[in-house]
């Protein structure tokens, strides 16, 4: 809908926009082109066609080279592995196809719990982190306690290892008998939200501070209140700036959801553990690990693609 400027089409106003008459080499008047648009498209010269052909050939060559080198590299790795003294035993207890097939359904079922925890935790992290980041940007003496609390929170939970938070939340809070009984996945989710919100709120805060002060000034100059300026002008821009960092944190959390298994929740890791101890074979761990990688891969690719696009846009030269 929001069509970007079509290059080459002069705007209607056109006051001295540099589209003077008789641009050299571009007047399609007497040429055989019957283009309906009237603005005959430039036809590449023989030189340019040559260059394009050359680049294409180079492209094929580099694909061939990279394929060959990958093949050689993989062969070397396989050969080295197979010739290590312990290989037969490792292959047997880590890469047992039969064990993989047997454990797959349970591990996959466990992964479904991880996915659900991840979904809930992500939403929780976004909300809590946004609240904390906003608290930290509040000015004025009235908000001092809130600001201090938010700062203490980020210090505490960025410093503490996730596994300790899991134990404290998962075994400590239920011990208070203040809340109704909840299952392990619930406390695991809570611990994840607490820890990751501390990181993500710092990401948000950096994003908010990266929005140029002149943007705030312009918004206030239009009569927008502090809150309206935040919501309409600052936060949308901050979000865009920090999206790649957020996606990275999401990938990190994606694998850390496996840690809820320490509380006894039967997720992919726990399921793999059960299968492993049943048959004295570590293959289920490999299965679970690969499944986690498969889960993360789309987001990792998306993050790379989005960061590259953002960089390209910024290099094009954006506004202040």
């Amino acid at each position, binding site marked *: 809908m929001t069509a970007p400027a079509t290059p080459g089409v002069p705007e209607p*106003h056109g006051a*001295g926009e540099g589209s003077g008459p008789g641009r050299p080499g571009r007047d399609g008047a007497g040429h055989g082109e019957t283009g309906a648009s009237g603005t005959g498209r430039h036809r590449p010269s023989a030189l340019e066609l040559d260059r394009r052909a050359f680049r294409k050939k180079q492209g094929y060559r580099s694909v061939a080279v990279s394929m060959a080198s990958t093949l050689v590299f993989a062969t070397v790795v396989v050969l080295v592995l197979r010739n290590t003294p312990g290989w037969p035993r490792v292959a047997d207890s880590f890469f047992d196809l039969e064990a993989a097939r047997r454990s797959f359904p349970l591990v996959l079922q466990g992964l479904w719990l991880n996915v659900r925890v991840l979904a809930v935790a992500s939403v929780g992290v976004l909300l809590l982190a946004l609240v904390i980041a906003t608290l930290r940007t509040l000015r004025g003496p009235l908000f001092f306690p809130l600001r201090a609390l938010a700062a203490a929170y980020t210090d505490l939970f960025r410093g503490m290892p996730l596994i300790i938070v899991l134990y404290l939340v998962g075994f400590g809070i239920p011990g208070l008998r203040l809340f109704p009984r909840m299952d392990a996945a619930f406390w695991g989710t809570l611990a994840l939200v607490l820890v990751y919100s501390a990181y993500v709120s710092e990401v948000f805060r950096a994003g908010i501070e990266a929005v140029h002060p002149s943007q705030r000034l312009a918004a206030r100059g239009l009569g927008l209140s502090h809150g309206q300026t935040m919501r309409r002008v600052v936060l949308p821009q901050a979000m865009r700036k920090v999206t790649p960092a957020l996606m990275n944190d999401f990938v990190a959390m994606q694998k850390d959801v496996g840690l809820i298994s320490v509380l006894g929740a039967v997720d992919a890791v726990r399921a793999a553990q059960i299968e492993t101890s049943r048959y004295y074979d570590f293959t289920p761990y490999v299965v679970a690990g690969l499944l986690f990688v498969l889960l993360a891969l789309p987001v990792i690719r998306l993050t790379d693609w989005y960061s590259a696009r953002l960089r390209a846009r910024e290099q094009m030269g954006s*506004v202040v």
Partner: protein
Amino acid sequence: MADPVLELRDVWCAFGDHEVLRGIDLTVQRHEVVALIGASGSGKSTLLRTANLLEHVDDGQIFLSGQDITDPRVDGDAVRARIGTVFQSYNLFPHLSVLDNVTLAARVVHRRPRAEAEEHGRQLLASIGLAAKADAYPDTLSGGQQQRVAIVRAIATDPELLLLDEITSALDPELVGEVLDLVRSLKASGSTILMATHEMAFARDVADRVVFLDAGRVLEEGPARELLSSPREPRTREFLARVLAP
């Protein structure tokens, strides 16, 4: 005749020990265009920012259409909603389309229905020849186009007063003309404008009155042609000689 839109009485503003405005008296009548000139650092931008309460005032009073806006009980947001401001560096919102930039204040501050605000916004964009860019994003516009959009954004809610702070100094010379033409047409339509400018020819051409600011004081003021061609004060003469030198 006397119907002041903006009136500053003995306005002071300091940053730490640095007194930037030192007792400014200044009046802008309705439909009048006043140009602020003065050396870099003389306090022009600061004066404009105090006029819409984006800068603190240490002493004195500022009246907007008779209301003392330096009264601490006055709502600054409401005051700014009545004033249009344009900055040197356009400051369009990069995440919003051109049309959304123009209609933001109408929708959010003045709570006009979107359809109504957009119709008005498109009319304004058409009047500056940028109707086709309504749905484009600011970074696809030239500097001159961006600054014209910024001006249209400032007038979209029919402000009582327009504050323009060196709106052409970030532009390539060939783009300055289109922006100045827009200011001329605003004057013709009866806008009240207070503008800081380095374009002396433009000030002579468009301003009714010129105010020369020197080290935080109004050193000299008068009808534009008169002041610019025969300044009384030696410092004004010195300044003009410097900026008008080829």
